[in-house]
């Protein structure tokens, strides 16, 4: 009986999403192409994720979006670049393009309903092709307003031998934002991302990255959500000597929630992945860190690290950590560590013994934890809450 009930609820949700009301708002996507239908069918088969799904065990999306109006909310996307930089930004109908340029097959896709949901409905779609290293960072502002839903989608195609810095700013809204960002990084290219999340919406964001030979992806994330937020990244190290470093600082607002999930799939040999999170939590805040190192058979000389540190400043804050490793050969160096707790009393005493008050010492220690990922010269520094600058 229970199972039947669940299925009914899923169907109700799906029917809402495919309702006439929502379809009418897709003026520029009136033709429902085969790929969109296929993604929609996949989504329908999986259903909206709930905590029963292991990967979503800390994010109850089904419950969270229950009360949201299933119409499109207004979302402003602004992409800024230096006029001299040769970057092609297009608002394109990806179904008319070569599909293989975009969504590449990955095993992570199998059960990711939010990705299929975005593929079905992506209403704000930008393709960004970078053929030469830009002089200045590309700035991407995503700001939604009002209630309802939005499904922004970006594809960054990075040509070989390119170095690019991209800054994402996510703000605004009262509804549900389901964002998908794909990076195709060609040989010998490096993408350095700085992301600030100040979303007031329920926010779900997925990064899907395909790394070619000798390519690198760096992400420094400052997450200051003012609602429930989930960031998930699926990195496929398809070819040799590719690497990624993901560093996230999470300081959610009172009563808010922030989930951070990174799956690194080592398919090519001699690849390196590194994921770390620093969280400062208080006032009923809940945070989670999930990371998977997945090193396939026959893949040699892999290096991977996971590192999570959370400071709980009061008893009402909570942190969940779930580091995982799936390693199918011996030619691997992996490290993982998780520390959850209050500030170290010996460190506080050391600072006190040099004349710093308890509150000053605590502030310095917290600033120190943040500075590990967001040092003084970081572009994210200005976005830190005043207390932690």
């Amino acid at each position, binding site marked *: 009986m229970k199972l039947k009930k669940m299925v009914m609820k899923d169907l109700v949700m799906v029917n809402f999403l495919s309702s006439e009301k929502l379809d009418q708002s897709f003026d520029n996507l009136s033709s429902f192409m085969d790929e969109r239908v296929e993604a929609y069918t996949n989504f329908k088969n999986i259903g909206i994720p709930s905590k029963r799904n292991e990967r979503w065990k800390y994010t109850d999306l089904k419950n969270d979006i229950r009360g949201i109006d299933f119409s499109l909310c207004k979302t402003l996307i602004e992409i800024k670049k230096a006029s001299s930089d040769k970057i092609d930004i297009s608002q394109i109908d990806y179904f008319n393009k070569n599909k293989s340029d975009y969504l590449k097959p990955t095993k992570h896709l199998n059960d990711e309903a939010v990705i299929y949901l975005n593929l079905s409905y992506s209403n704000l779609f930008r393709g960004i092709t970078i053929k030469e290293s830009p002089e200045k960072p590309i700035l991407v502002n995503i700001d939604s307003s009002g209630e309802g839903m939005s499904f922004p989608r970006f594809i960054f195609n990075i040509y070989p031998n390119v170095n690019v810095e991209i800054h994402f700013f996510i703000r605004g809204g009262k509804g549900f934002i389901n964002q998908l960002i794909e990076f195709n990084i060609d040989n010998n290219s490096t993408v350095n991302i700085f992301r600030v999340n100040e979303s007031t919406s329920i926010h779900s964001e997925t990064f899907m990255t395909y790394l070619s030979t000798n390519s690198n992806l760096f992400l420094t994330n400052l997450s200051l959500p003012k609602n429930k937020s989930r960031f998930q990244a699926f990195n496929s190290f398809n070819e040799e000597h590719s690497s990624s470093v993901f560093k996230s600082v999470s300081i959610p607002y009172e009563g808010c929630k922030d989930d951070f999930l990174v799956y690194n799939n080592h398919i090519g040999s001699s690849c390196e992945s590194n994921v770390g999170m620093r969280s400062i939590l208080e006032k009923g805040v809940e945070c989670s860190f999930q990371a998977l190192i997945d090193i396939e058979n026959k893949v040699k000389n892999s290096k991977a690290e996971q590192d999570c540190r959370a400071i709980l400043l009061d008893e009402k804050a909570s942190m969940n950590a779930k580091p995982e490793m799936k390693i199918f050969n011996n030619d691997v160096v992996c490290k993982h560590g998780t520390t959850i707790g209050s500030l170290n009393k010996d*460190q506080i*005493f050391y600072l*006190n*013994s040099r*004349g*710093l*008050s308890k509150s000053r010492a605590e502030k*310095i220690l917290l*600033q120190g934890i943040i500075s*590990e990922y967001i040092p003084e010269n970081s572009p994210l520094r200005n976005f830190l809450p005043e207390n932690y600058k």
Partner: protein
Amino acid sequence: MKQFLNIKNLSVSVDEKLIINNLNLKINKGEIHAIMGPNGSGKSTLSNVLAGKNGYNVTNGDILFCKENLLDFSPDERANKGIFLAFQYPVEIPGVTNINFIKTAMESNREFQGLDPLKPGDFLKLIKEKAELLGIPEDRLKRQLNVGFSGGEKKRNEALQLMMLNPSLAILDETDSGLDVDAFKIVADAINSTRSKDNSMLIITHYQRLLERIQPDIVHVFVNGSIIESGGPELANEIEKNGYERFSNG
């Protein structure tokens, strides 16, 4: 001579175990006292209690520092009043650069004394001068505080902080341990150079060799939480030669 630190009938316990037992110790301004004693005799407990670390239960006695009861003050207030503990095991503070930390500590001390912060140029000049004396390379000042430092580097850094903060009473808790022969000489001589008629030191050590370079006025033998004998530097020579057997049996 002006009395500076006066420990009267001090008893301290940890988890109901008596560590310091009815200790009496007076240090006058400008004096250097050394405490020597076997492992587990309570020497580090004494230094932690003086600095105000939590977890120590003072069951009896007083500690007067410049006529004020030190036990009434928090660790930071004690530090700002001029007490400095050079740690036996300095902790690592990730994300905080060494130079910024020392600058912040100096500003805090000067603010307490009603002084303006040092001008950035003056501070830099001073810290480079002191670091050079201690053989600390400039790039280590920019590194995270004690993070990845060797035992010897940590001790040199404690000595640097001591020289920068110029406290009234420096408590050196086994500052000589972990230093190689050359580093030992450099650090000991640098600390010795801070000696003045206005400052006092309490040196906790196992080795007479430190007291050869920083010659104490009085040496105390500390056993089972009490001073059982005091004397001149010759007492340190005797301990170096014969160990603590005579004192333990006595």
